[in-house]
């Protein structure tokens, strides 16, 4: 597991020294060199694929930028001597050229991603007589989408393309985000990525606290829970065990993914680089819609900004909406375009996660549940008009949180069980074969001791405590606001992880779950 390997720690240590020794204007080059070494350590054979993405996106963005500049200059020079129609025709022509360049680059990058990630699955789905096992470069889904987001922003004229190739290469390959994101936006990340940070011991302390907190989540909870969360097979599913499985998987996924992101953000902070936050207390969400604005936020906002919104504001969709509203008024049918865009976005999100029917069905299930909750909104509103004040009570708030948590656990059955049939059996067992008594006899037989349970529950309680205390801000800013507190917290977390983490003989630190996407 690359973040917790001795090689990674040595690399970060060496980079820190070189970074702060070099003059400020060269510091970003240290990060680029570190990113190349990191990626080569993960697998030298991955480098050419990353190289293709970097070169193709950089070159296309530059060409798009030049075309935009040329257009601006032409329009300024000919504003007086050309008619409005002639200028519009010129702009249209230039726009078409830019679209062609953009699509060609998109084809190269999505083609590469699609070929490497999905060919094996497609051949097997089509029952082809041959198999392929192609290399899947580390983080390809993350860096490809980050690069495409950059290209779309440049094409839209949101910001000009980066002229310095080495700086762009660093944006596309910055090593902490290569394993499982977050998916950054160039205009935000470049503010801190290129400038070269001043040496600040307290900021390094904050980074170390974040890394130690992430490592604690990963090693104390996630890796320990692997032994708890084995699929339950046999003559049929038992509802109570499926429920336990669902909840334990939710805890493991949270500790694993947020732990990894904490480490990535912490490593960035050591170098003064601010990576975007990816989580905002997702398990305290009161609806699935809210949940998806708090979980894997950078992926959610990517699909929202580059798929969902463009689809909805496209001329065909607006025309379709208008036609349906004219014919059917403001009811369910007039929302068909919105629902279609929702399903397309969620199908794409599911497929982005991996090659398999389960991923596609997971995405579609999310879409369907969101559509259902939208459709039922008038009913909720009627209910709350009848019981005014109920929504503001703590009890109802807690009910909404538990309901959303369980709903997300149910949707993740697609993650836990291997086939639709297994998912259906597990799901139906919750209602027709719950048998809570089985828990008492099964739990002692699991290869998990009382100590493991206590450690996991205590750490989960600590994670919940931190989530509740931090509110909408940062726990470190609020409570670790002196050097003494900061370094004490870093030391305590390190000791806690060393004492209670699942590593050493009998354990192997597992890969991050999201690393496979």
């Amino acid at each position, binding site marked *: 597991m690359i973040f917790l390997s001795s090689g990674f720690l040595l690399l970060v240590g060496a980079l820190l020294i070189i970074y702060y020794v070099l003059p400020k204007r060269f510091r970003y080059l240290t990060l680029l060199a570190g990113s190349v070494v990191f990626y080569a350590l993960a697998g030298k054979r991955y480098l050419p694929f990353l190289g293709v993405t970097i070169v193709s996106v950089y070159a296309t963005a530059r060409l798009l930028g030049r075309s935009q500049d040329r257009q601006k200059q032409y329009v300024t020079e000919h504003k007086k001597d050309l008619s409005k129609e002639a200028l519009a025709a010129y702009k249209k022509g230039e726009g078409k050229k830019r679209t062609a360049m953009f699509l060609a680059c998109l084809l190269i990058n999505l083609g590469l991603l699609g070929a490497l990630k999905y060919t094996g699955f497609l051949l097997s789905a089509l029952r082809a007589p041959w198999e392929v096992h192609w290399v899947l470069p580390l983080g390809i889904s993350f860096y490809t989408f980050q690069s495409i987001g950059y290209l779309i922003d440049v094409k*839209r004229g949101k910001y000009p393309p980066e002229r310095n190739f080495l700086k762009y290469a660093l944006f596309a390959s910055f090593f902490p985000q290569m394993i499982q994101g977050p998916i950054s936006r160039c205009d935000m990340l470049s503010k801190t990525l290129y400038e070269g940070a001043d040496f600040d011991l307290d900021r390094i302390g904050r980074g170390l606290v974040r890394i130690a907190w992430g490592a604690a989540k990963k090693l104390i909870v996630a890796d320990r829970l692997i032994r708890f969360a084995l699929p339950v097979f046999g003559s049929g599913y038992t509802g109570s065990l499926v429920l336990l499985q669902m909840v334990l998987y939710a805890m493991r996924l949270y500790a694993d993914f947020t732990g990894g992101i904490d480490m990535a953000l912490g490593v960035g902070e050591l170098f003064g680089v601010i990576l975007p936050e990816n989580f905002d207390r997702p398990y305290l969400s009161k609806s699935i*819609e809210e949940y998806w604005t708090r979980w894997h936020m950078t992926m959610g906002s990517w699909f929202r*900004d580059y798929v969902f*919104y*463009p689809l*909805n*504001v496209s001329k065909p969709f607006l025309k379709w*909406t*208008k036609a349906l509203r004219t014919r059917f008024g403001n009811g369910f049918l007039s929302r068909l375009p919105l629902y279609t865009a929702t399903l397309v976005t969620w199908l794409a999100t599911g497929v982005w996660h991996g090659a398999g029917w389960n991923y596609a069905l997971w995405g579609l299930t999310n879409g369907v549940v969101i559509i259902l909750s939208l459709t039922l909104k008038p009913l909720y509103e009627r209910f709350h008009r009848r019981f005014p004040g109920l929504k503001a009570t703590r009890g109802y708030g807690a009910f909404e949180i538990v309901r959303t948590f369980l709903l997300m656990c149910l949707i993740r059955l697609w993650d836990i069980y291997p086939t639709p049939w297994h998912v259906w059996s597990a799901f139906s067992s919750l209602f027709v074969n719950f048998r809570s008594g089985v828990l008492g006899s099964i739990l002692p037989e699991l290869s998990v001791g009382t100590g493991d349970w206590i450690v996991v529950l205590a750490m989960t309680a600590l994670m919940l405590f931190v989530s509740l205390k931090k509110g909408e801000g940062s726990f470190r800013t609020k409570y670790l606001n002196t050097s003494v507190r900061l370094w004490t917290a870093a030391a305590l977390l390190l000791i806690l992880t060393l004492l209670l983490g699942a590593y050493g003989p009998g354990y192997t630190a597992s890969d991050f779950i999201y690393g496979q996407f």
Partner: protein
Amino acid sequence: MTFQQLLILLRDLHPDIDFTAEEGLIDRKILTSFDVVSIVAELSETYDVELRAVDIVPENFNSAWALFALIERIENE
């Protein structure tokens, strides 16, 4: 389109929000992505104001005033 007409459109979505004062409609998660899409569709259908995907950023939707400024900009283009 007038500011009053925009307020009516927004109040249809969230009657409980004071849109003349609120300045964190997106940042404070008051407007969801579905609300944003509904606003875009309504603006296009009723007022012939066509927003592009690039216009849909938090700065343009965080307050009724920012959204109104965007609409005026598009109408004047």
